[in-house]
């Protein structure tokens, strides 16, 4: 019997479990390679050629080239890995969050300065579904 995923109903969140780890393996291995300067140099000189060494899916490869940060997570990427690609592009964790939430840099930073995103209304997917139908 499969292990029940009691965390799937948390809205706006991917839990990086074994299934995601399997799907995202080559994507994440590509991302972590960018922690070293020589690899960043090689990638920045020829992105397509560098990616050929990582047998990721065409969708994952496309999302890397287009820097579709949420899509990378949807396709099995993990934030600690994808943040290496962001760092390569000069984007830090907070600005990356500003992009992923769709809020933009300033609004996101302001939200954090005001205590962050409240858990109220953000615990269950059903709470987000209700907001959308309002």
């Amino acid at each position, binding site marked *: 019997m499969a292990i029940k995923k009691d965390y799937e109903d948390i809205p706006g969140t991917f839990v990086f479990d074994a299934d995601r780890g399997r799907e995202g393996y080559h994507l994440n291995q590509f991302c972590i390679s960018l922690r070293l300067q020589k690899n960043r140099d090689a990638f920045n000189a020829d992105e397509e050629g560098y990616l050929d060494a990582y047998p990721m899916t065409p969708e994952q490869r496309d999302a890397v080239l287009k820097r579709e940060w949420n899509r990378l997570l949807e396709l099995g990427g993990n934030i*600690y890995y994808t943040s*290496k690609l962001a760092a390569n592009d000069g984007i830090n964790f907070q600005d990356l969050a500003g992009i992923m939430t769709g809020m933009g840099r300033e609004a996101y930073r302001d939200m954090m300065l005001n205590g962050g995103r409240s858990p109220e209304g953000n615990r*269950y997917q059903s709470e987000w579904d209700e907001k959308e139908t309002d």
Partner: protein
Amino acid sequence: MARITAGVGCSHVPAIGVAMDTGITDQPYWQPVFKGFEKSREWIKEKNPDVIFLVYNDHCTVFDASCIPTFALGCAAEFAPADEGWGPRPVPVVKNHQKMASHIAQSLILDEFDITIMNEMEVDHGLTVPLSVMYGDKTPEDEWPALVIPLCVNVVQYPAPTGNRCYNLGKAIRRAVESFDEDLNVVIFGTGGMSHQLQYKRAGLINQEWDTAFLDRLTSDPVGLSQMPHVEYLREAGSEGVEMVMWHVMRGALDDDVTEVHRHYHVPASNTAVGHIILENKAS
């Protein structure tokens, strides 16, 4: 014999390290974060531990997805700060008490905690930021005032070890320390957290009420706290808030009765709630 006299819980937000490394800790954004560690720096100077047993997680820096040990004990002679994608932190190399680390490795495995032994390892901000906030600015030419035994815990790929497992590991670490035949003052650190979510559309989640209750229960109800299921961390404290399981290792290694001697909590540091606590064994 060696003995554990106190525990430190501490966030390890990378931006805190960047703020120290770039000399901007006096800026209004950072000033309240560092203010809360002033007392801690006096405390640790006074306490002057010989060895810090430091529980932390690697952030896909040293461990890539090819090998994911749940518990990895640093047994190398020293650990260099790693390049995490923006160059290594300009802080001292971390020196181990290698003989004690290998003793602990052996003791833990015979005590049925099947840890991974790391004879070569670099360390990322998860380990060096807590040292920096507790000891203040250090350059690569300096030395950390204590030897450090690192224990790296997987909290990146779900599931992290359970809180209960971490708490009991803390007890086994204590048994290992107390069976080491050298008179050493050991302080244990549990790091990470507090509430934060770095990813996707719910990024920025902060739950001050939950964090406060967690800090309270470290003293009043540590066993009950260690029973909290993963889904509660994920839902209430954000997907990256599950790092908090590492604090149970620290708590398990202390006496049942402890005294809270210091607490600090501040929002935000980048995407994260900064939490910090110092607990002392009553007897020591």
